[in-house]
Every structure is written in structure tokens, then in C-alpha cells.
């Protein structure tokens, strides 16, 4: 508990109270002036209250203000003990996410779905139908009607999985998508589907012929570029999520107590909007690669 901290506390509390008092005390006649006064006092209150809370948190936790240092960053997540096995923490989180999704899906299938009424949809049925229809239309628009039937289910599950994993960061856990193994497993499924649909639609000979399409010389190149698909998909999602994680960690770590409202505001982008964009990109690329292989 140092003197600058106490001075900061007092001054910020004084100005915050002053702003609130001004808001209620001043009563300008002009409507334009009133609006401006309201805005100014609101901004002032927020800023001084934020400074007060930040300083208070710093005093309570014994941290020294802004440090601009990221302590102990690890590329791979730490490991925890599960029944004597050393398991990455993200793997445990992934199982939790899958369990929650599975329970939700079971409830959905056996409790909510039988109550759905085809004639007069309402509430949750409308939302479900809208979501499934949007995904279905999107998938069919990208890969065509012949593959769309089964792929829609996978793509929907993938979207829920990636978003669910990314949202665990809101609970203070390291997001599983910022683990290279988790993203690589998803990318491997894409690689498998790409070959499966390619061989199913054109037979093995047709697929090999398509790989050597302009001339046989290019065949090794095409095989190599197909093998690069899972690597690039996995690294893209991993890098993006890790980037978001580092920015959030940096904000929380360097601002100390002053990260009080800042990380919440930044989290709107880095924990919600950014994962949504990356989910979209992952899905679009998966569908594009499958479409390319099956065409």
C-alpha cells in the first residue's frame, strides 16, 4: 500500500463522485447542451470508476500497476494428472466440451424434438430450423446436392465443436483450439473426408487420374499439395486461436488490476467474434477442398 496508490484512489473517487453529482445537479435548458452534459458526465464516471476499481484491485492483490510483461508463456498447454496419466489440460477441456455437447444433443433429440410441431413452429423450433436450414443451404451451395446430404451434419457438428471449444476461454481455461493436436485432429478428419468423397465419387482410378490431370509430371506435386491440406488447416486455426490467447493474456498480465473492464471489452472480439470468423474460414476451406477433390 503505497502513497501514489492512495492518492490515485482518493482522486479518482473524488472525480467519479463529482461526475455523478454534476449529472444530477446541472440542469441546462437547451436540449443539445443537456445531451452533451449527459455524455460527458457518463464518460467521466466510467473512466474514473475504472481507475478506482483498478487501483483498488492492485492494492488488494499486491500487484504493481502496469508491468508490460508476459510471464511464463508456453506454446503447449500444461499437463495434469488424470488417474496417474499425464494428460494435456486442453485434452481434458475438450472432453468436457464434447460431454456438454453430447448431453445437450441427447436432451434435444429425446426431450425437445418429439414436441416439435410441423404445422405451428414456435420458440426453439424456429431457431433450430433456421440454423439447420442456413448450414444446409450453405453446404449445398458449396459442394452441390449430391454430397450435401451427409456433410451438413458433420459441418454443423464441427461448427458447434469449434465454437464450444473457443468459448471455454470465457471460463478461464485455455481454449482447446489453441492446442495444435486438437486442431490437427480436426484437419485430419477433413483430409480423410476429402479422399473418401474423391474416391467414392470418381473411383480410385478416376481420383488418381484427376491428380495427374494436366500431365503425369505434376502428379507428385499434386499429392504433396493434398498432403499439405491438413497441415495448413491445423496451423491456421491453431495460430489464430493462439494469437487471440496471447493478446488476451498480455492484456490481463500487463495491465494488472486495470484490466478490470478492458479485457471484457477486448474479449468480445478475441473470444467471440474472432472464433466465429475462424470457424467460418475452417468450414469454408474444408468444403472447398472436399469439393475440389470430388469434382
Amino acid at each position, binding site marked *: 500500500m503505497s502513497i501514489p496508490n492512495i492518492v490515485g484512489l482518493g482522486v479518482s473517487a473524488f472525480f467519479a463522485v463529482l461526475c455523478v453529482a454534476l449529472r444530477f445537479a446541472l440542469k441546462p435548458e437547451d436540449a443539445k447542451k443537456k445531451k452533451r452534459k449527459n455524455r460527458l458526465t457518463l464518460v467521466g464516471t466510467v473512466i474514473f470508476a475504472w481507475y478506482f476499481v483498478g487501483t483498488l484491485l492492485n492494492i488488494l492483490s499486491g500487484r504493481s500497476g502496469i508491468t508490460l510483461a508476459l510471464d511464463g*508463456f508456453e*506454446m503447449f498447454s500444461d499437463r495434469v494428472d488424470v488417474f496417474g496419466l499425464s494428460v494435456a489440460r486442453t485434452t481434458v477441456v475438450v472432453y468436457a466440451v464434447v460431454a456438454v455437447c453430447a448431453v445437450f444433443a441427447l436432451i434435444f433429440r429425446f426431450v425437445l424434438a418429439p414436441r416439435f410441431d410441423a404445422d405451428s413452429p414456435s420458440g426453439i423450433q424456429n431457431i433450430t430450423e433456421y440454423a439447420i436450414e442456413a448450414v444446409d443451404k450453405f453446404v449445398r451451395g458449396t459442394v452441390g446436392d449430391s454430397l450435401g446430404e451427409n456433410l451438413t451434419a458433420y459441418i454443423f457438428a464441427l461448427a458447434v465443436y469449434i465454437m464450444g471449444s473457443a468459448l471455454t476461454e470465457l471460463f478461464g481455461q485455455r481454449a482447446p483450439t489453441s492446442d495444435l493436436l486438437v486442431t490437427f485432429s480436426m484437419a485430419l478428419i477433413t483430409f480423410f473426408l476429402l479422399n473418401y468423397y474423391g474416391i467414392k465419387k470418381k473411383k480410385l482410378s478416376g481420383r488418381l487420374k484427376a491428380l495427374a490431370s494436366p500431365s503425369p509430371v505434376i502428379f507428385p506435386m499434386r499429392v504433396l499439395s493434398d498432403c499439405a491440406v491438413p497441415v*495448413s488447416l491445423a496451423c*491456421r486455426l491453431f495460430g489464430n486461436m493462439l*494469437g487471440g490467447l496471447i493478446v488476451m493474456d498480455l492484456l490481463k498480465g500487463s495491465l494488472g488490476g486495470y484490466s478490470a473492464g478492458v479485457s471484457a471489452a477486448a474479449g468480445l472480439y478475441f473470444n467471440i467474434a474472432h472464433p466465429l470468423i475462424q470457424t467460418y*474460414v475452417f468450414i469454408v476451406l474444408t468444403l472447398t477442398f472436399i469439393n475440389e477433390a470430388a469434382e
Partner: protein
Amino acid sequence: MTALAAALALLPALGAGMFMGLAVKGALDAIARQPEASGKITSALLIGLALVESIAIYSLIIALILASKA
């Protein structure tokens, strides 16, 4: 020295950022010219941006590998 190498490994982000800007400029030009095609242009732009962005992401990963070994 590893820190320097990690910083240098981030140089591709410069190029990626510049040319992502160029791609967005092109897409905006196209949308301004043909507003009715904006849906198709946007999806093509997003795929292109994702591919360009992957270069920056690779450099970030390499930098991180270098930095976390140090």
C-alpha cells in the same frame, strides 16, 4: 540471438498485411461497381484472405517456437 531470429521470423506478416489490404481494396472496388454480386465477392474474398493470412500465421508459429525454446 534466438529472440532476434524470432523477431525476424515475423517479417512475412508485413507482406501479408500489405497484400491483404490490397485484396480488400480490390473486393471493395468490385462491390462498388457491382453491388448485387457482393455475396459471391465476399465469400471469395474471405477464402483468399484466409489463404494469405496463413502465411502470417506460419511466421507467427515459427516465431513462437523460436521464442519458447529460448
